[in-house]
C-alpha cells in the first residue's frame, strides 16, 4: 500500500495538453441546429492532461482503494461477498452489451429467457409467487414493495390503512420508505433477546395497519424466532408483511420468506446474488410477492407463452403500480445475478447459507475467546453478529471507531460501526461465505492484537490509522464545511457554502 495521497486530476492540468488520439471526431456542422442561447460561449472547465497521465492517475486512485478484490471486507448487513469473474464475463458478451432495449422481442429471446429464468429462480429460492426485476436498487425495491401494499389496500377500498410498523432494530431505509410512500411509521421495540416484542406488536396493530417491515435475520444478527406468530398477528389485523432482503444471504436455500408468511420482499441482488457493490450503483432491487399482490407488480415483467418470451406491461397487469425505471432496470446487473445463480444451482444456494452462518459463528466464538463481548451472547449468530466495545470504552477509553481505524493498519476493512443504533459502541461483523479459514484467522488475530494494544497503549489506537494514504479524518469538520469543488469557477453556484 503506497503511503501517499493522490492529487486531484485538475492539478495535473496544463494548457493545451491532451490526448488527441482519444478525441471524438468533430462534427462537420457543430450544433448548427441548437439555438444560440443554449450554446456554450466558453469551453467547459475540464482538466487538460495526456492519456498516460490519465491512465496513471486513475490506476493510482484504484490502488488506494480497499476493495473485496484486495482485502477482507466484513461490513455487516452489506454482504460484501466476492463476485465471481465469470458473472462479469458472461454478462459482457457482445450480444448482451449490444442489444438495444427497443429492439423487437423476436430478436431478444435470449436475454428475455435469461431474465425470465432469473425471475423463476428468485421465486423458487424465496417462496414468492411472482417477481419483478425493474427496481434499480434496494431502496427502490422497498419503495415498490410498500407502494404495492398501499395499492392492495386501496384496491379493496380499505383507505384507512396508512400505518407501517417498523421495529427499532430496522435499517433506516424502512421508516424512510414508509414515509416516502405516505405512511405513518409506528415503531416497536425489540426485547433483550433481540426478537421483536410481540406484546408491543399486538398493542399497535389494528384497522389502520397497512403492514410491518421486518428484516429476518434482523440487523442484530439473530433469527426472528417468533416470525410465524408475528405473521399471524399482522395478517389477523388485516395488514401485510414486508421482508427486507438485506440479510437474505443467511437463510439462502434453508428457509423461505414466502413460507414465513411474507407478502412482499425486496432482494438486494448486489448483496445476496453477487452483483457489483458500491460506487452508488448500478444496483438491482428485485421484488417478489405473494398471491394477493401479483396484480400490483411493477412493470415490465417477462412472461412466457409456450416457447416465446415477451414483456408483460400495462395491458397484462392493469393494476400494476407502474414503471419504476426506463425499460427493464439494470439488465447488465440482472444478467450477473442470473449467471451467479446458474453457477450455484439449488444445492450451491444452500451451501451459501451454511458457510455464511458457519463463518460468522466461528469468528464470533473465537473473538469471545479473545476477550470480546457479544451483544447477544445467548444467541447463535446468523450470517453476522455484533460485538459491543461498551466495556472497553468505559474501562480503557477506546471506542468502536478506534478499533475500526486500527483494523485498517492490519490490512482489513473495518466492520460496520455504530449500527444498529440500539447497541452502544458496536461493530457489526459479516464475514460472508467466500472467505477462507486462513483469512478469518488473520482477522481474529488482528482483533486480538488490537485488544492487547487497547489495554497497554490506548493512545496508539486513538491516532490510528498510520499506514493509510490519509490519517484520521476530522469527520465533524468534513460534515460541517462541505467543500466539494476543486476550484470554483466564477459562474459556479453552490458547492462551497
Amino acid at each position, binding site marked *: 500500500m503506497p503511503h501517499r495521497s493522490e492529487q486531484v486530476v485538475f492539478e495535473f492540468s496544463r494548457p493545451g495538453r491532451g490526448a488527441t488520439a482519444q478525441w471524438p471526431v468533430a462534427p462537420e456542422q457543430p450544433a448548427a441546429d441548437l439555438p444560440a442561447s443554449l450554446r456554450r460561449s466558453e469551453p467547459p472547465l475540464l482538466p487538460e492532461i495526456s492519456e498516460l497521465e490519465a491512465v496513471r492517475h486513475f490506476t493510482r486512485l484504484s490502488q488506494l482503494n480497499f476493495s473485496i478484490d484486495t482485502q477482507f471486507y466484513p461490513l455487516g448487513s452489506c454482504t460484501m461477498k466476492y463476485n465471481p469473474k465469470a458473472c462479469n464475463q458472461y454478462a459482457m458478451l457482445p450480444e448482451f452489451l449490444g442489444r438495444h432495449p427497443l429492439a423487437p422481442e423476436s430478436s431478444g429471446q435470449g436475454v428475455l429467457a435469461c431474465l425470465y429464468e432469473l425471475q423463476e429462480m428468485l421465486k423458487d429460492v424465496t417462496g414468492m409467487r411472482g417477481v419483478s426485476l425493474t427496481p434499480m436498487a434496494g431502496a427502490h425495491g422497498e419503495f415498490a414493495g410498500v407502494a404495492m401494499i398501499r395499492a392492495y389496500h386501496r384496491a379493496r377500498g380499505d383507505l384507512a390503512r396508512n400505518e407501517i410498523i417498523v421495529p427499532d432494530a430496522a435499517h*433506516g431505509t424502512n421508516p424512510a420508505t414508509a414515509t416516502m410512500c405516505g405512511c405513518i411509521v409506528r415503531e416497536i421495540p425489540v426485547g433483550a433477546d433481540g426478537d421483536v416484542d410481540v406484546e408491543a406488536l399486538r398493542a399497535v396493530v389494528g384497522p389502520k395497519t397497512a403492514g410491518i417491515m421486518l428484516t429476518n435475520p434482523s440487523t442484530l444478527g439473530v433469527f426472528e424466532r417468533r416470525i410465524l406468530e408475528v405473521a399471524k398477528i399482522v395478517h389477523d389485523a388485516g395488514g401485510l408483511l414486508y421482508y427486507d432482503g438485506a440479510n437474505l444471504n443467511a437463510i439462502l436455500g434453508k428457509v423461505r420468506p414466502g413460507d414465513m408468511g411474507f407478502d412482499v420482499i425486496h432482494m438486494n441482488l448486489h448483496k445476496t446474488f453477487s452483483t457489483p457493490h458500491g460506487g452508488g450503483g448500478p444496483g438491482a432491487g428485485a421484488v417478489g410477492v405473494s398471491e394477493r399482490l401479483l396484480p400490483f407488480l411493477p412493470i415490465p415483467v417477462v412472461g412466457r407463452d409456450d416457447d416465446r418470451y415477451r414483456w408483460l406491461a400495462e395491458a397484462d397487469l392493469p393494476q400494476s403500480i407502474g414503471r419504476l425505471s426506463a425499460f427493464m432496470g439494470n439488465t447488465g446487473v440482472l444478467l450477473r445475478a442470473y449467471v451467479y445463480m446458474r453457477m450455484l444451482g439449488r444445492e450451491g444456494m444452500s451451501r451459501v447459507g451454511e458457510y455464511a452462518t458457519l463463518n460468522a459463528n466461528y469468528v464470533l466464538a473465537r473473538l469471545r475467546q479473545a476477550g470480546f463481548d457479544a451483544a447477544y451472547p445467548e444467541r447463535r449468530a446468523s450470517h453476522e453478529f455484533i460485538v459491543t466495545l461498551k466495556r472497553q470504552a468505559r474501562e480503557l477509553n477506546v471506542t468502536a471507531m478506534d478499533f475500526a481505524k486500527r483494523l485498517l493498519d492490519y490490512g482489513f476493512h473495518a466492520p460496520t460501526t*455504530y449500527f444498529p443504533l440500539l447497541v452502544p459502541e458496536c461493530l457489526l461483523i459479516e464475514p460472508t461465505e467466500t472467505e477462507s479459514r486462513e483469512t478469518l484467522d488473520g482477522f481474529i488475530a488482528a482483533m486480538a492484537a488490537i485488544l492487547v494494544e487497547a489495554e497497554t497503549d490506548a493512545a496508539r489506537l486513538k491516532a490510528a490509522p498510520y499506514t493509510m494514504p490519509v490519517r484520521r479524518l476530522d469527520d465533524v469538520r468534513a*460534515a460541517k464545511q462541505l467543500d466539494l469543488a476543486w476550484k470554483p469557477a466564477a459562474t459556479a453556484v453552490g458547492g462551497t457554502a
Partner: protein
Amino acid sequence: MSDIPADLRYTASHEWVRSLADGSVEIGITDHAQQALGDLVFVEVPEAGRELQAGDACAVVESVKAASDVYSPLAGTVVDGNAELGSAPELINQDPYGKGWMLRLKPANPAVLGTLLDAAAYQASLAATDA
C-alpha cells in the same frame, strides 16, 4: 458520568424540561444524550406557532454517528426555537442545559410537568439501561 441538574424534569428518551418564569418551558436533550450521539453536525428545531402533542417528534439531531428525532415531553404550542443551533450545533455538545436549549413551549397543561421524571428517577432509568 453525565451531568443531571436537580432542578430539571426529564424523559426516558433523554429530553430535559425547565420551567420558566413566564409559564413556558424550555426543552433540550440531556448531557447523556449528547455524549451518546457524539459531535453534532446538524440540528433542526421547530418554528414558533407549531402545535405539539406529547411524544411528537419536534426536532432532529444528527451527528457523525446517527440521526435521531427529539420528542416533545409535553403537549403545547412552540413559542420559540433556538435559531443559533442552525449554524452552531456544537452548542448542544458544549452546553446541553444552557446555550444548547432547543425549543420553548407554552404547555397545554402545565400540571403535566410534575408527572415527568425528576433527576433521581432519570438517573435510575439511565442505570437500568446501562446494565
